[in-house]
């Protein structure tokens, strides 16, 4: 298996496996926020804002994987 094929495979694996964790985490975060809004609808504004910032932080993990995949596909130093 040459380096090019390997890097394509690894890019797919990086995004695929790397998005499992953030997906679960975002699901939990949204579920908790829904729960909180259902209990205190008057706090919905503040909760939504905090939720968005939190989701962005969680999403960063998936974005890192995406950047690794992009590096492998477009700027790989090992495939000429």
């Amino acid at each position: 298996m040459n380096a090019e094929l390997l890097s394509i495979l690894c890019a797919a694996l990086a995004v695929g496996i790397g998005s499992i964790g953030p997906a679960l985490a975002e699901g939990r975060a949204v579920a908790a926020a829904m729960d909180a809004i259902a209990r205190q609808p008057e706090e919905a504004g503040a909760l939504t804002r905090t939720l968005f910032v939190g989701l962005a932080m969680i999403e960063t993990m998936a974005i890192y994987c995406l950047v690794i995949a992009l590096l492998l596909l477009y700027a790989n130093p090992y495939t000429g």
Partner: protein
Amino acid sequence: MEGPLAPDVLFHLGPVPVQRQVVTTWGIMAALSALGPLALGRAGTRWPLLRIAVEFLMEFERRQFEPVLREHTDRHLPLLGTLFLFIATANLLAVVPGLEPPTSHVETPAALALVVFAAVQVEGLRARGRHRLRDFLRPNVLFLPIHLLSELSRTFSLAVRLFGNVASHELVVGVLVSLAGLLVPVPFLLLAVLIGLVQAYIFTMLATVFLAAAVRGEDDAVQAPSGETG
């Protein structure tokens, strides 16, 4: 193959290559600079709606920053507000045909994150001087490398977060166009509006929290940007 990491050179200005997103950035800068005098200058009475829109935006930004920055809001509102305006405008270019958001290449988010990094260090030193430096030694000297690393890595993640979100969405739309044809990506372009605004908000909010932590001390600045504005 053209990727989001490859340089996209439009023309050369002497020995300096000028990339497409730099030209787009100049356009956004010109548009935003023209917006101020148009909306708030003497001509502001001619377009009252524009003036109201700009004032509403400023009020919104102030309401977001005030619970985090408290008494430092007035000093940092110009920088943070401009960051938000610029990133929001840049991200919204994703839905304009023929243009691409400058934030979808690494260079622009990296430059913005470096601006935030410099602002945090300079303003932290200016506001608290020695105490700011002592924060690096908390809880003891052994934590100095960790603090330095965290300053660098959060700047890096600030840049990569913005870049990754915008660039990945551009990629998704590109793949959809090549797979499904002309009109299928339209709902995804609507999603681009949402993603662009949310990312602009998050970049600005994180910059605000970092600034507040440097300027006000670590005690209570790092609370979530919720607070009393309901």
